[in-house]
Structure formats: C-alpha cells, structure tokens
C-alpha cells in the first residue's frame, strides 16, 4: 500500500481545460463571427457572395473532417447528402414550404436519410467503405435524377425567392451561411468537449483500445456519420438557395468529395482547426487558379498526394506537432505539481 501512496502522483494532478491562449482564441472567433455578421452592410454584393461560398466550403470541410478525421471513415459519398438536401429544399418549395424554412428541414432530413445508409455502408470497412459510399451517392443521384417533378436529368430552378431583390436575397443567404457555419463549428466544438467527443478521440486514436475501455465503437461512429450527413446537408441546402438551381450531375458531383478531402488534408485532418485553415487555403487557391480550368483540379489532386505522404497532419499538425495548442478550449490538460 505504502508504495502506491508514495507514487509521484501523490498529489492529485490539477486538471484544467483550455489555456489562456485557447480562451483568447475562442474570444477572437466569437468577435470575428459577430463582425462578419455586419459584412453585407459594408462590403459589396460580390464580396458577400464570395464569403457565402467560403462558408459553404468550410461547412463541407467540417462535415468531412468529422466523419474521416474523428470517425476514421473515409467517405467519398458525402455528396449524396449535399445533393439530397439541395433537392429536399426544392421539393419542399414545390409543396409550398418557403425555401428559408426548407433549409433547416432539409438538414434534419439529411441526418435521417443517413441512418439507413449507415446500416448498408457500415457492412464495409476501410477502402471498400469508401467506394461503397460512392456507389450509394450514385444511387441517390440516379434516383433523384429520374424524378420528373424535380426536373429529371436536366435539373430545375428554385423560383421561391424571386420576389425578393437579388441583394436582399444574397444578404439573407449570407446570414444563413454564416449562422450554419458557426453552428457546425460550435456543434463540433461542444461535441469534442462532451463524453461522446472523448469516445470519438479514443476511437480515432485506436479503435481496439477504445472498445476495450467500454466505448461502443459502432454507435459512436454511426452518430458521427449522421451528424456529418446533417452538416453536409446544410452545405447542400445553402448551395441551392445561393445558386437557385439544381442539376443531378452537379448537385451530386464527386468534385465535392475532392474539395472536402483537399481542405481537410491540407489544414490538418482530425483537428478542430484543420478545416478552417484548409477552407481558407482552398478558397484562395480557387480564386487565383480559377482561370486555369482543369489544371486547378490537377494541382488539387497532386497536393492531396503530397500532403498525405509528407505532411500527414497538415498545416495545423506542423504548427502544433505535439497536440499542445488549440484555437478554442477543447482538451483537458494535466498539471502535476512536482513539489
């Protein structure tokens, strides 16, 4: 007994969450978000629309980072939920639900539709899970592309919001995008602080050890899959209210997966900060390489290879190689008093 009490941890370690820096970071994030809410009043319509596109990208990145970075499931099928939500907003508007109200409903529906999908996809693991989700996304595209009331293969326009002036419409869309972006980041942050977040980090680090300590791996993964689908659905719902049209080939484009993977990899997979950094870099690249057509996609693909092989934890991993820092207070820290 005495040997145990004489252990170095005689004094109970002090457990804190968040450093001064991370609390400062959280404050900065909140201030930036509040300031961004006033952006449409200051900047022109073009900038507002650019920022909306940026928020949509960031939401996608957050969704994919959850499923791949924390859930350890490489999905190449999240475009299923992006396209599904776009079409859900359209379908609801055809049934008399104004598109603004359609957005939250579409998000919930995306989460719900991902439940049966998860039961099929979870039969597969690793690489075959990846292609399996891709096939499921193709099924979504083929089925929705045949609904003639939704425009069939040619697509359809959302005419719901035509009575608003374009600038008002763009501003409201902007606020929707900003709000959903903050929501997606907030939910992720709170989730990671919660019990299920700890289970997730345990699953991310080592599935078998997590299972051994009593974490229900499948249930945790399914929860993440559903949440990620809802977040990607949010991006899809925003896409239709900002573009005002849908088309099966573009709404379910595999390119969305490429974009999400690129952003998360470059920023830092499995970190809260990674998607934010990745989305900023992707957005800048997209704006500068816009004139280079397909070369831009070639560069994205090459970058994905290079980063995976030589910088596997992305830019945030390089900034924070030992998991010490964090932008917002997320992780517990142990302080052992040596004296």
């Amino acid at each position, binding site marked *: 007994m005495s040997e145990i009490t004489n252990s170095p941890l005689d004094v109970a370690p002090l457990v804190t969450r968040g450093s001064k820096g991370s609390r400062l970071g959280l404050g900065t994030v909140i201030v930036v978000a509040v300031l961004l809410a006033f952006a449409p009043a200051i900047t022109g319509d073009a900038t507002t629309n650019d920022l909306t596109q940026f928020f949509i990208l960031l939401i996608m990145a957050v969704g994919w980072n959850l499923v791949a970075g924390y859930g350890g499931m490489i999905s190449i099928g999240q475009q299923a939920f992006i396209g599904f939500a776009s079409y859900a907003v359209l379908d609801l508007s055809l049934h008399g639900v104004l598109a603004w109200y359609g957005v939250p409903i579409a998000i919930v529906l995306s989460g719900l539709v991902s439940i049966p999908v998860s039961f099929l996809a979870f039969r597969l693991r690793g690489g075959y899970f*990846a292609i399996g989700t891709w096939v499921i996304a193709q099924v979504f595209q083929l089925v929705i592309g045949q609904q003639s009331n939704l425009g069939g293969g040619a697509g359809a326009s959302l005419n719901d919001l035509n009575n608003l002036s374009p600038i008002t419409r763009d501003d409201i869309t902007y606020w929707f995008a900003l709000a959903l972006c903050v929501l997606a980041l907030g939910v992720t942050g709170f989730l990671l602080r919660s019990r299920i977040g700890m289970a997730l980090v345990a699953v991310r680090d080592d599935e078998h050890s997590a299972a051994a300590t009593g974490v229900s791996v499948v249930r945790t993964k399914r929860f993440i899959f559903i949440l990620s689908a809802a977040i990607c659905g949010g991006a899809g719902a925003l896409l239709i209210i900002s573009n005002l049209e849908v088309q099966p080939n573009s709404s379910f484009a595999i390119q969305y997966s490429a974009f999400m993977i690129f952003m998360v990899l470059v920023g830092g997979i499995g970190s809260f900060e990674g998607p934010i950094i990745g989305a900023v870099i992707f957005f800048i690249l997209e704006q500068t390489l816009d004139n280079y057509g397909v070369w831009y996609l070639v560069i994205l693909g090459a970058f994905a290879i290079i980063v995976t*092989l030589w910088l596997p934890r992305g830019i945030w991993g390089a900034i924070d190689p030992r998991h010490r820092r964090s932008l917002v207070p997320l992780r517990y820290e142990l302080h052992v008093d040596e004296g």
Partner: protein
Amino acid sequence: MIWLNAVVQGLLLGGLYAIFACGLSLMFGVMRLVNLAHGDIGVLAAYFSIILIEHLGGNPLWTFAAVVPVAALVGYFLQRFLFDRALDGGELSPLLVTFGLSIVIENLLQQTFGANDQSLNIGALSYQSWKIATDVYVGRLNVIIFVIAVIVIVGLQLFLSKTRTGLALRATADNRRAASLSGINPKRTRSIATAIALATVAIGGLFLAMRTSFAPTSGSSDLLFAFEAVIIGGLGNLWGTLIGGIALGIAQTVGSQINAADGILIGDLVFLAILAFRPQGLVGLKSEVAR
C-alpha cells in the same frame, strides 16, 4: 426472347467487369490497398492505345502487345515509389493518395484530349455477330472479350496456385508477417501484385474502348462497376469475382430492358441488396466479409 437476349448480353458484359475487378481484388487481397485510381488507369491505357494508333496506324488490336507490358511496368514502379510509401502512413493514406491520383489522371486526360467521347475503331469486328437463337445475336468482339476474361481469371488462378511467385502473393495475403519471416520479399511481392493488377486493368481498358465510347471521366464508373463485381461475387475469390461481374452485367442489361435509363441503377440496387442480405457475396465465405 428479348429477356434471353438481355441475359446473354449481360453475361458477356460481365466478363469485361470481371477483367476490371480482378486487379482491384488482387491488390486488396495482397496488401489491403484499395486503388481508387484503378478505373482511371484502365482509361489511361485506352488513351495510350489511341496515341499509338494515331502515330503508327493499324488495327488497335496490336496495341495490346505494347500497352499491357507498359502498364505492368508502370504498376511495378507505382507500387515502389508511391503506394508503398502510402501504405507506411497508416490505413487512410492509401485511399487519399489513390484518390488524389485519380483526380490527377482524370483531369490531365481532360486537359490533353478534351472531354469528348472517343473510341477505338477495330473495323468489322466491332459489328460482326453470331446468331445463337431467334432474335439473339452475340457480337464477336463481346464473345472474344468474355473468353479473354475467363482466360485471364483462369491464368491468374493458376499463377497464384502453381507458381512460386503466386504462392508468395497468397502467403502475403494470408499473413504478411509470417510470409516475410519465411523469406518472402514483401516489397517485391507487392510490386508484382500491382504490376499484374495494372496489366489486367489495361486489358480491360482497351476492351472497353473497343466496345463502347469512353471519356476522361469514365474511369470512375469503371471503378464502381469493378468494386460492385468484387462485392457481389465475394471477397478473396477470383471465381467469385467472375460470377459477380456476370451478375452485375446481367442486372444492368435486364434493367435496361425494363427501362432504358435504369440499367446502372438496377446494378447498384443488386449490389446494395447483396450488401444487406448476403454480405459475404454470392460465393464468398462468411469469414471474408469486408474485413
């Protein structure tokens, strides 16, 4: 008779899917690597053949002799310099690297050749056919593709069970550590597996290009069909892959017969049904379920 016709055409189409699928299956078996650029490499081979014909002329059939060995060589070094490195990086790296490779290949092809459909013109062989029953004709090319598919699968099976290298591949598939302890060089084994996989997918790519038109982005759907064939048939079993390819081909042609636009969807649904109700595949063992 139209249904018999649909089934016969589907059976022949299934051979092509099996050629695409066997390489995917082999690489997964030997090193748990799913090559998401598999289909794109087949399409790349078809474009290579187009370039050869443009410069040297003749019937595209001769280009098999050039394209297939080059594909094998490329596969050997692709494994050495890219995939091996990716495999060292953990479970997710190979997927991300091969997905990146897929995007690079598709868009480079689009940049070089444009997005338009192309095809390999093999002259009279593309439309000659045999009559096997009233109103049921089989294209000679399709029969040849099917026969080659069976030869490829049988050849691969014989190679894996009769040759020293084949045994090394199977040993590595069963237990990597034990294989390397018994003197098998894992690097070489992996490179050989990828060389074979790329050679077979090049054969598939050329046949596909002779059978139908193709475009830079065709590789993705080829990958999905190959994957569906593997899962429908059952993992870790080459005969299963052939049967899976045939089942998928028949599902698609019968589906098209029901509604012209529904072929691919019916194929997908058969795949999902197998996944839901018989995850070990049509001929797979229960222990092999999508490890």
